[in-house]
């Protein structure tokens, strides 16, 4: 199976052909739209990520020794971004998730979203995802 870094490299590859912001955001939007909608029952205070102007929910489940993530947002670009995170990290072990280095964000030109104060809360998303990793590790 592909490692976290394999998937990051693949995304970087995908984005490398985009020359301007339009293409990049069109990709994010399309990608966001292609993702399934999170069941309402998972949209709770617990799964909600704070610090985003749009609503973002991130739900995680242990399947065998792997963590599987499901995410949703009411804004489509945000959904695309959180979808990328899920694509990279879902299906890996808690250890792998907790220790991952998410270099793809910078490489695909979303670094500007990485500031802790950004309204889309990418930093909060990453924090939450890693928290899941650590939490599931602890349960082991």
């Amino acid at each position, binding site marked *: 199976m592909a490692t976290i870094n394999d998937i990051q490299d693949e995304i970087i590859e995908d984005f490398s052909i985009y020359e301007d*912001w*339009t293409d990049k*955001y*069109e990709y994010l*939007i399309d990608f966001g739209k292609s993702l399934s909608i999170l069941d309402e029952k998972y949209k709770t205070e617990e799964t909600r990520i704070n610090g985003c*102007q*749009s*609503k973002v929910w991130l739900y995680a489940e242990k399947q065998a020794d792997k963590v599987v993530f499901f995410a949703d947002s*009411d*804004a*489509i*670009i*945000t959904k695309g971004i959180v979808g990328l995170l899920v694509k990279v990290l879902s299906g890996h072990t808690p250890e792998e998730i907790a220790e991952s280095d998410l270099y793809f964000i910078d490489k695909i030109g979303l670094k500007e979203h990485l500031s802790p104060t950004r*309204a*889309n809360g990418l930093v909060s998303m990453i924090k939450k995802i890693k928290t899941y990793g650590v939490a599931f590790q602890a349960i082991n």
Partner: protein
Amino acid sequence: MLDIQKIRADFPILSEKIRGKQLVYLDNGASTQKPKVLIEAEQYFYEHQYANIHRGVHYLSQIGTDLYEASRKTVQQFINAKHDHEIIFTKGTTNSINLVAYTFGRKFIQARDEIVVTEMEHHSNIVPWQILCEEKGCILKVIPLQKDGTILLEDAARLITSKTKLVSVVYVSNALGTINPIQELIALAHSKGAKIMIDAAQAIQHIPIDVQALDCDLLAFSAHKLYGPTGVGILYGKEDILNAMPPFEGGGDMIENVSFAKTTFNALPFKFEAGTPHISGCISMSVAIKYIQDLGLQKIMEYEHSLLEYATERLNAINGLTIYGTAKDKSSVISFLLEGIHPYDVGVLLDNQGIAIRTGHHCAQPVMEYFNIPGTCRASFALYNTKEEVDVLVEGILRAKKMLS
């Protein structure tokens, strides 16, 4: 007629490029840009005249004090207050309103007394009263919104009663652009023996204000929305009301005499200005006011109105676009949504085209709740905006819409 190109040249930031595109700054409701004269005035002050003010015998301290007090006079004249000591320098509108809540509120509002606001208030004119009500057991009454973003005077007349101690209403809604009938609200409040405070944060830069003609009791605004510096606000209050209010913060300058046995307080306006003020900002604020006065606020208002009309027409022509706030009396703010599209997505895609608007709840969550929407996109215009910029906005929205549909 205003020479807009000349005006634009006075604001250095307007020629910035954002992500390689010409900046189109339409977030003036959040804060306005600063004219070069103001930036230079602050610089000059720090380079040639700076010292702490009041009680200083030496030359620099006296110059600073003179400039500071002259600025107070400029504000006085700008809103036509009767006395310059009716002008209190604060940190901003929020600080001004809180000052009133902590002083007027604590002294004159008791359990079961009522405070009246509207459903379109900015959080800064809601939360201070909620904190006060929590503490004192007084009651916050809310004049409800209508679909067009206005309030009804009959609702106001019903809610403002002899139990009302204070009415605190926004002159112009930052989320909807609605210009409230404050003349009538002031008359209503006074007819019931209530005092009335006006949140003029979104009015002062658009509408000539004469506090004596209005006869409002208290009025608050921020310099940073008036082409002025950050960190400065004004609280205007009628002399007798300010005199009756207890002091807010304690410290330097607000005292007459301090001893551990007995401390007495200074006269207005110093009673409410504890500690070293934001000297450079209070001084440079007057530069911004003079800049506006030279252009003429009446002319600015007319020009901005023409922009609003043009933008409203063009935006209304966009399929699936809904404008929130359609009052007859409106200031140059347009809140809108594209059908089925989250405002954040529109904001991001406009930003990538160099267009700065604001998205979200605009610190007016009750308005969003009323319309049952997650927020809006808000374009707000200032005196330096142009029809060409409206066109760029429209193109930008169309492009965003296409990408998001």
